[in-house]
């Protein structure tokens, strides 16, 4: 056999790492937006998302090639199926990040209070980073913590929604904050998926 599963694993994971760097990059723009209400970052984020998507496809190609050539089983098989899902989740997170920027373009949010959404975003962000780290480092504990943290995000999300519903502020702010919170909550779900996949990779069991 010309190639080993380890070689594929290296190639796949370094691509996933590159995707992670893209996330780090886009998330800075989102932070910028939520903290400083800075706009006009959408075109750049769109470009970065496209790159992430290309990298996702690259991971899929590696995986399919490895499946065909190695016909792997057990943990080798799980390495490939997991990395396909992780790559998909990361690319999805990229697009969610971009969505936040996109939504911001629609409204004038200069006077909105985005502090709660920012806090929600920071929580989700740390989940995403941890989940990817747990995957790359094969760290079961971290992945479990990510799954636990999801509940917190959900609670916080619902709290924001309730508050928005009862608050007397400008409609655009309610809309923006609501939509952004919703997107962030979805992002956190994908972090959770990554954590779950990691747990499956490591134990062979689906903890869901």
């Amino acid at each position, binding site marked *: 056999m010309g190639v080993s599963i380890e070689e594929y694993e290296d190639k796949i994971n370094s691509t996933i790492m590159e995707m992670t760097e893209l996330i780090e990059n886009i998330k800075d723009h989102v932070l910028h937006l939520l903290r400083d209400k800075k706009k006009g970052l959408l075109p750049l984020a769109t470009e970065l998302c496209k790159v992430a998507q290309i990298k996702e496809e690259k991971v899929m190609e590696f995986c399919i090639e490895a499946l065909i050539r190695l016909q*792997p*089983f057990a943990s080798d*098989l*799980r390495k490939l199926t997991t990395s396909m899902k992780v790559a998909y989740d990361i690319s999805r997170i990229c697009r969610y990040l971009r969505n936040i920027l996109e939504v911001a373009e629609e409204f004038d949010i200069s006077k909105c209070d985005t502090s709660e959404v920012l806090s929600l975003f920071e929580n989700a962000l740390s989940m995403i980073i941890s989940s990817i780290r747990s995957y790359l480092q094969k760290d079961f504990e971290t992945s479990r913590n990510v799954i636990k943290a999801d509940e917190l995000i959900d609670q916080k999300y619902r709290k924001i929604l309730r508050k928005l519903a009862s608050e007397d502020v400008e409609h655009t702010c309610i809309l923006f904050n609501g939509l952004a919170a919703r997107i962030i909550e979805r992002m956190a779900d994908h972090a959770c998926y990554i954590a779950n996949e990691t747990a499956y990779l490591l134990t*062979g*069991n689906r903890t869901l």
Partner: protein
Amino acid sequence: MYKLRVNGLSAWFQNKQVLFDIHLEFPEKKVIAIIGPSGCGKTTFLRCLNRMHELTPGARVEGKVILDGKDIYSEMDAMEVRRKIGMVFQKPNPFPHMSIYDNVVAGLKLMGIRDRKILDGIVERKLKEVGLWDEVCNDLKRSGAQLSGGQQQRLCIARALATEPEVLLMDEPTSSLDPASSARVEALIRVLKNNTTIVIVTHNIQQAARISDFTAFIYNGKLIEYGETKEIFESPKDPLTEKYITGRFG
């Protein structure tokens, strides 16, 4: 519903124990793959299931193998067991002195069934079942040894099926065949599953993953893990199984 239950099976060659206290159930009309490294006892295990093991001088068996509630060792005669639990071997072994026709019905003819009409019907049905009819229907009188390796193996499967066994044991049935013939035999196994329980020993783990519903992993004469094939090949519980099926053994 279990067709065959193996209860505390141990086997010896002279004083050397080769199987250790194996417990296992085979559900009806499923394909069960037995995998394991060479010399792990998987073939011996298979041969204990139809009392072929005892043909080897100095061989001994303990434990029970229960076919539909009857222990094949204490409650059945070896000949009866072998008619109910057929076997296909690693190397195609058609009887070289017999025609294709006689090979198919060898088991019946030699046990005294002479009715030409019945035999004709069985030959046609069984050869069709194994997909050999169209290839040989015009020269059934030809010697079975003149067929190609893949055809010979299918002929042997037809021969084993002629006595209408309820369980079919296959000992690495494709290991001496080319890929195309192997694929035909595998396709045949999927069809046979409709009315037969099939236990297949294979050292080709991809094949086990392709054709079986359940997989048992035997190592050093011990049953290490048994479960649904999808489970075994995706997330085996035992580290030994994991090592074996990912090719990281020894």
